[in-house]
């Protein structure tokens, strides 16, 4: 089944971590989508109490331009513009997970809060059938470097999964093995559409 895996990567704002993985995985040829679970898209601002906040659905391009107009120097320095530039070339706008109708085989989350949101949403939505989906959480810190590392980890795990003929059967062992190699704790659960 290999590249047939339908993958979702979910973070809070669908900006850094999910997009880094999205970019990386799609370069590897995987069918991947990315989402955020937060209420709003939040980006660092001039100070910690003054973040830049946008609605989901605001195009990356628009955000890019907005930030560039605000303080091109600072946002170039902290890499936000660079990131947004990458994002706008991948897709149009940040997407909210709770709004999607798409079905996946594997959903990656990058922190426990996001995992909880995903599970909560999956639980609460109307069940159509019995198609299972694996929700997997790997904690990734929200900065550029960690996002890259996280993307690598997710890529490794996806590679493992893609090489699996019968994912449902092997996922337990697979995750345990992966956990011991990457030395990060992984949350995993199975949900149904």
């Amino acid at each position, binding site marked *: *089944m290999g590249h047939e895996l339908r993958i979702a990567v979910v973070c809070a704002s669908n900006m850094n971590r999910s997009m880094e993985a999205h970019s990386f995985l799609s370069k590897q040829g995987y069918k991947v989508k990315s989402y955020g679970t937060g209420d709003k898209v939040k980006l660092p601002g001039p100070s910690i109490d003054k973040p830049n906040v946008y609605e989901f659905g605001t195009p990356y391009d628009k955000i890019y331009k907005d930030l560039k107009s605000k303080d091109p120097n600072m946002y170039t320095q902290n890499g936000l513009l660079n990131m947004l530039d990458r994002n706008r070339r991948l897709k149009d706008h940040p997407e909210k997970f709770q709004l999607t109708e798409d079905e996946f085989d594997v959903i990656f989350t990058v922190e426990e809060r996001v995992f909880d949101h995903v599970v909560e949403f999956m*639980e609460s939505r109307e*069940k159509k059938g*019995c198609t299972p989906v694996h929700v997997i959480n790997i904690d990734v810190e929200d900065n550029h470097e960690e996002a890259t590392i996280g993307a690598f980890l997710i890529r490794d795990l996806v590679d493992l999964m893609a090489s699996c003929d*019968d994912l*449902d059967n092997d996922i337990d062992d697979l995750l345990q093995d992966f956990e011991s190699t990457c030395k990060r704790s*992984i949350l995993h659960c*199975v949900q149904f559409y």
Partner: protein
Amino acid sequence: MSDLETENRVTELLNQTGLVHEGPKRIKIIAELKELLLHRAPDLFLKYSEEILAFQNDPAPDVRKMALGFFEEACQKKESFLRMVVPALQNIIFNDENPNVLKKAMQVACGLFKNGLKWVSTALPEEMKDAVGAWETLSTLRDYLVKQIDSDNDGIRTHAIKFMEAVILTLTHSPDGKAKASEICLDIVPLNLRAVRPRKLEEDAKRILESLLKFHSSLHISSVNLMATMAALTNIAKMRPVFLSTVVLAMQGLNSHLPPTLGKSQVSSVRKMMKVHMMALLKLPAAMDHITAITALLNELGATYQEIMKNHPNPEEIKQAARRKKDEGRKRPRPMDLDVVPSLDLDAAERKKRPKRDDLEVVGPKALPLIGETAVPKSGDLTKSAEEYISLRLRPDFVFKTTRFSTLQKIPDVGLDPDFPRLASNGLIRGISRLLGNQLVKDSVFPCDKVAIERRRREMKKAEEKRKLELAKEKREKVRQEVPKLAAKPVDAVVDDSTAEGLKSVAEKSAVAVKSTVAPISLAQKQKRLTNERLTEKSKPMSMSIVLKVKASALSRISSVGDETGIAIRSESRKESMRSAQSEVMAGLSSLMPIEDVLGWVVSFFLTDPVRRVDHVIAWLYSEYSQGQSYSPVSASALRPLTSNDTAEMDRKRYGTILTWILKAIAEKDEFPEKYDVIRRLFLETPSLTDEAVAMLSMMFPADEEQAEPQVIDNEADDQSPEIPRVKRVTRMCELLCDMILYRRGTGKHTTCLRMLLDLATHPTPTIRQEGLSAVMRLVSHSDDAFAAAIGEFAVMSINALVMPGAIDGGVKNEPQDEVPEEEEGGDKKPAFVNWSEDSVKSACGLLFVLLPRKTSYLFDLMRVFAETSPEVKRIILRLMEEPIKELDGNSDEVMAVLDNIPKGGETFVSRMILLLTEKAQPSEQLVYKVLDLYKTRVTDVRFLIPVVSGLPESELMEILPKFLRLAPNVLKEVFNRVLGVATLERPEEHNPSITPADLMVALHTIPPSAADVKSIIKATALCFEMKAVYTMEVMGEVIKKLVDLDEIPTLLMRTVIQAFSLYPKLSGHVLNALQHLIQKEVWKNPRVWEGFIKCCQRCGAPSCVVLMQLQAEQLKSVFKQAPDLKDYMSRHVDSFTENNAFVPEPVLEALFGQKTPRSLDRREPPPPGAMEAEAFAMHPATLMNMRPPIYAGQGLFDPYRG
């Protein structure tokens, strides 16, 4: 697009599917077909159904999956399609092997099942038959799929869980019958429908729920499935609040007993999901009854107060719900609860105890009320007393027994504590009694009579107190004795009893003990269970053949570790420990495999390097043995695959078979230097020997077989074989047998070994026999009397054979292992006898002879046999007995006893025995008299006395002496030797003969002619003379003196004298003296002596003249007549006389010189030459000795006597 166009397109697409073979393209086509047939022109589906359904057999799994989706959607469009689709689905489910397709099919089945129910409920009469058919097929499928919960594939299990959830939801009524319009459940089934019986379906649903719960609480569940099950249960609880309590119970049970197989992060995932699910449950209005339980659980899962409050139902709602509850109190009875409780009993018991433990630990906020208490409507005392009533009547062991099965499944496979049933049942009883109590009260079964209740309660209280006291007593002992053990168990219900203050302190103590020990133990146990369960989970689903293959390959890998090819391990101790671990693992592993698989492998493994691998093999045998005796905690036969002939009987024999095979293998292996060391170890170190194994001993030493061929007994040539000399092998075998007898006592096998050894000891081949005998001796000297007795018995039996006419022809040789080859078999087989040869007699007697010095009483047996057997055998025995008899103590009581009880025919034996006994030592006085007595009473043969002759008193000896003279010279010589103690004695100085040599000689001479003829006496004296060491010159001088002094002159006197003189010429003085004495005794009166006298004088020559001078003329004449030469001496002698001293009587002169002698005229003639000498001699007789006798040096003298 018109219908026609659509149809054209459909046919075109269908045609394309025949041409396009790439999966993805076909999927595209099918997707388009689906679109067309389901959405554009649904009517066409029926027309092209056959083609569509044919996709179910498509080679590409993805296409099959696609087709399944197609079918499902079709059925959702129109239920009647089920008629075609269900068989297709069934086909896939039963026949498809791709797990992904199967999973898809299971998903589809969820939907179709619902559709099926809908169809069968709403079908028009004309469709009814099809609908019912489809439904029945679906029901079959349902049962099949439910069983997939035990599938090998984790993913399929997940889908099975989901399927079960769907089925349960479908086959139950919605709460209050208010199902949503879209929901398909039992509500839609009309009550009058015959084909579907809603009540039965509901039962089925409950059953399925039960198996789902069972799966939920199983220990080997994977985290994915656990979460899926939790989700399914939560969903069920949400949709069917009637099951809520069951689900909450299950969740609580799970929380307290998480599967040990879960990893750390899996545990956190599971707990997280549980929290999510419990939160979801908390929101339900129906959760009202369980709010405390759920809150407690959430607390334990780490939910904050705020989180809980957020999801807490509105207090207003709670009140409403309570009100509603009161109104519908009757709705409470839930058969489900009762059904489920047994399967959850352990959890229930645990759960009920947990709060209490918390109480004791004073943890504070965690202290919770018992769950379910709020669930019970407050019917007051009545319910309580009903509960009490029931709980008093439920005996722990009964409860435990009835619920044991489900309980045991959850207990890790550690040994059950004997107290476990009681402890486990305590919580259980409460749960059951509470449920039953509720039920009784609600159904008004429980008596409501207040007085009766009061009375009963008093009784109960009494009983309860009594019981508690007992429990407390037990408890105290427990605490004192085995606090750690207690720690592993749930705290007893007695602990929180407040009525008995004393008990409480005890309980607290125990609780403290529990607290201090419970954590490490449970952790350790968990760890242990973790690995255990892992293994079982992993290996369980494998097919037997794979398991075996894996085991075999594991075995060979492990076995190759020790080979030097692998890692070089320097430290010797590490090598050692590795080797022992290796053999342990291998032993364990191979004992778990069916014998036919492992045997060949182990044997070849062993044979490639027997010396080093014998350790492994022994370890393996031990493992097999302990399995066979069911010593080991895990029964191997349970783990071993059952083959058709692998019965319990086989199992028991397994050890024996293996042992036999191994022994056979090593026995058949070519010779190598350590072969017999290996064999020895196998025989001595294996846990137990079977009869076959012992019998194989003979095979082990093929040498024995070779010579078992009835051929030559002399095997000198064989011994020079290029390999190990056979004798050496026999030596090894004897050693081994010996050790086996000594170290394997009490197994019953040592007797067999002993018999084998004894057979060797009586083996016809001398070399083997010798080995056998020395081994027997070693054994006898090592061990106590038990063996000695057995050996002796055998030895006696063995010699008993000698009574038979001959040795059994080939009896020993052909069957070396036969028990007692000669005698026991002899009677039965009527064997052909061959004459006893020295060797066969030797082989029969050898053992006894060896034993004889240790136990003299075997003499009796030997003697008895001797008496009865043939002369030939007698002869051989007499010859053979020399050695053993010589070692006996001649003075022992047994010997004396033997002498007292000589059987008829045993005399020879006895005399030989006595002879041998006295050869080296002086016979004791006792012996002498015994023998003498025997001689006088029974044995007339004088030879009988020979052995003791040296001890005979002189008088007896004198009496018997003549009889000895009749014996052959060599015997006689022996007699003399013994009498005189010559040459036979090691310490002659101790010899104290009753008679001196001189006396003996004298005695010989004094034997009256009536007793013995002269000739024999001459011979005897001759023998004496031969013993020059004894009869020295001095002795002879003494003899001569004694003889002459005798009153009566013995006939042989002169003969002896002459002989002595010729031997010892220096005796001449004695001789002359003797002659002189004889003259005084008028020797001439005895013609024979006179003759000797003259001869003696002749030998003496000139010196005898002095003696002769004393004779009368008459005698002198006779002398001269016989010996003219003496005349010359005499005349010369007389001539030499001077006038003064010469006084020669006339007759003498006359005899000397005739009638007229010149002597008479002139006496003063000069003496003849030599007269001076004669004179000197006369004056100094002693100087005569230096004279050489001039004549009679020859032998002529005694000739007349020789005749």
